[in-house]
């Protein structure tokens, strides 16, 4: 009797689960940005708890992979740390909408023996260092912004990411904006031809090399620096203020850029105006087809995006992402209606 009861319960559960699945299960596959992965997986699992019939799978294969898989219809959504180029959009052959999800910042950090101060970097100093023009830590370009800090005459060892990454995209986008020479010689991309320096694989590789090498400078994203308690430097914004990267100063950059937000959200907000804006900040985006023929998928996509813009943003700060400023949220909500 005991067994019969147990089996009956199991059978009932299976039937209920199976029935529910058969009725309205929606499976959405997404792929792309590794930078957004921590918050995306949090969102998808929270959303699944609220709507058990909606299951969103995410593969953090990198922005380039996300764009490629979306273009070839392998996944339903893509996710990217850089907006798609006009060329990529026309190559896709169908309309793709950009939805900013959260923001991230990238900051310089360093290992100078005997210096514990929080250094201030002018855009010119950072571009000079990464172009190989500024080669010693006591260079006037660095020293003049840091009065009172005793900088040694040590050689600067430049460290960059060796793997293609959205972090590099944001970093090189900033350098391209502040240095014409960088723009013409190196440019903006997830991987570039570095004039100088050593490459570390991943944020952990860059951090490892900087910590190991006296005189080194590198860059990592805010989430990585905060969760690993890495001290980092301030960067001067266009208003002339040296700003430390924080969740607030990165959000401020987005608010500063929001006034001139283009309709398709494909915007770079590095070097954004505003006294409190951190200059090396960027959106990261979901890439969603404007036409989703499967009605259930379309409905689930719209509902998820609405949830993400309202409740979802509350999870951002806890994971060290900067939430979207309010004007951007309002503008995106209007855009959800464009998904047909």
């Amino acid at each position: 009797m005991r067994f019969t009861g147990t089996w009956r319960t199991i059978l009932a559960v299976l039937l209920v689960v199976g029935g529910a699945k058969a009725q309205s299960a929606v499976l959405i596959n997404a792929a792309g940005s590794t930078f957004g992965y921590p918050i995306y997986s949090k969102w998808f699992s929270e959303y699944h708890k609220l709507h058990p019939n909606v299951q969103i799978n995410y593969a953090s294969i990198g922005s380039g992979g996300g764009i490629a898989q979306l273009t070839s219809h392998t996944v339903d959504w893509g996710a990217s740390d850089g907006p798609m180029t006009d060329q990529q959009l026309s190559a896709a052959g169908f309309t793709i909408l950009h939805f900013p999800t959260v923001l991230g910042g990238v900051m310089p950090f360093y290992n100078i023996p005997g210096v514990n101060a929080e250094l201030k970097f002018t855009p010119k100093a950072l571009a000079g260092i990464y172009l190989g023009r500024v080669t010693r830590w006591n260079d006037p370009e660095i020293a003049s912004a840091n009065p009172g800090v005793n900088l040694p005459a040590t050689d600067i060892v430049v460290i960059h990411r060796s793997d293609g990454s959205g972090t590099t995209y944001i970093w090189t986008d900033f350098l391209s904006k502040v240095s014409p020479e960088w723009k013409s010689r190196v440019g903006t991309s997830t991987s570039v031809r570095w004039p100088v320096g050593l490459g570390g694989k991943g944020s952990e590789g860059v951090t490892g090399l900087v910590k190991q090498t006296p005189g080194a400078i590198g860059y990592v994203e805010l989430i990585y620096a905060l969760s690993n308690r890495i001290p980092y430097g301030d960067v001067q914004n266009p208003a002339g203020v040296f700003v430390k990267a924080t969740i607030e100063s990165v959000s401020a950059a987005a608010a500063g850029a929001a006034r001139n937000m283009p309709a398709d959200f494909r915007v770079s907000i590095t070097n954004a105006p505003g006294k409190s804006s951190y200059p090396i900040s960027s959106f990261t985006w979901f890439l969603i087809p404007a036409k989703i023929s499967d009605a259930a998928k379309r409905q689930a996509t719209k509902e998820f995006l609405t949830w993400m813009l309202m409740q979802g943003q509350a999870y951002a700060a806890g994971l060290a992402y900067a939430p979207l400023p309010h004007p951007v949220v309002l503008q995106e909500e209007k855009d959800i209606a464009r998904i047909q």
Partner: protein
Amino acid sequence: MSNAIQTAGSVAPSHEGPRAWLRRFVSGDEVAHIVTLLFASTILAITGLLVLQLWTNSRLSRVQSGWHFFFMQTWDPVFEHFGALPFLYGTVVTTVVALVISVPLGLGAAIYLAELAPRKISDVLAFLVDLLAAVPSVIYGLLGIFLVIPLMREVIEPFLKRTMGFLPIFQGPAYGIGLLTGGLVLAIMIVPFIVSISREVLLVVPREQREAAMSLGATRWEATWHVVVPYARGGIFGSIFLAMARALGETMAVTMVIGNDPRIAASLFSPGYTIAAVIANEFSEATYPLYINALVELGLVLFLLTFVLNGLARLLILATEQRGVAHS
């Protein structure tokens, strides 16, 4: 039943043929033949598919760069210039450094384990060596970052500069990151392969070989070096090939310590880049078709390089074997 056999017999030209075949089939000979043949042909199929995939998916890059791909030194995804030379250089140099360090070390260890060590010690050490061969390469990479890089920067590279700094390969700033460190970490990784396989082949050299040499008055070492090792030469070379192939294709451990900079510099202290490392690093974020095609073509180049180096090594064996015959 008997009808069926008769029919089958009358169709075949020989009465014995099909029956004998059927008997062999039932007893397992033919089954084993077909099944093992099938398994063996998968190797050919996989190799063929691999080359085909690499060939078709690198079309854009092959058409655009042609033979220049092998000689161009620039790798610039922003301005769409793709050349393989710095990666070829880095791959060959790290592999050569790895072999120069690991072959004497591995062979020496194998000789000790097979010929000189007490059986118990030999078995325990051989077990440890096999364990080392199974360690994932990322662990060797971490070992490289936390142990080898500081050691190179603080001790080994300054020492090499002081003692052999007149050589161009030991000049320039020493960060502890670069081709030499990449080669050293590779050497640590491939030594277990050489030791493990060489020890096995040395152990199966017939006792008579050794006894004959010693009865002619050879010392134990003379018997080992002049008789046992040459006898096992084929297997030892096999172990070195396997180690070389592993070094050529290693990705993770190398990329963590080599500096990942596509640059051709004479100094072993300078950073470099290998083919496998750049493919692993850039493939996921390669955003346009030509870029992806260029990375796939690098894969094709690595395949070619492995092929050529293996061929050269085999020629080397042939040459030494003929010389050995001439001597005797």
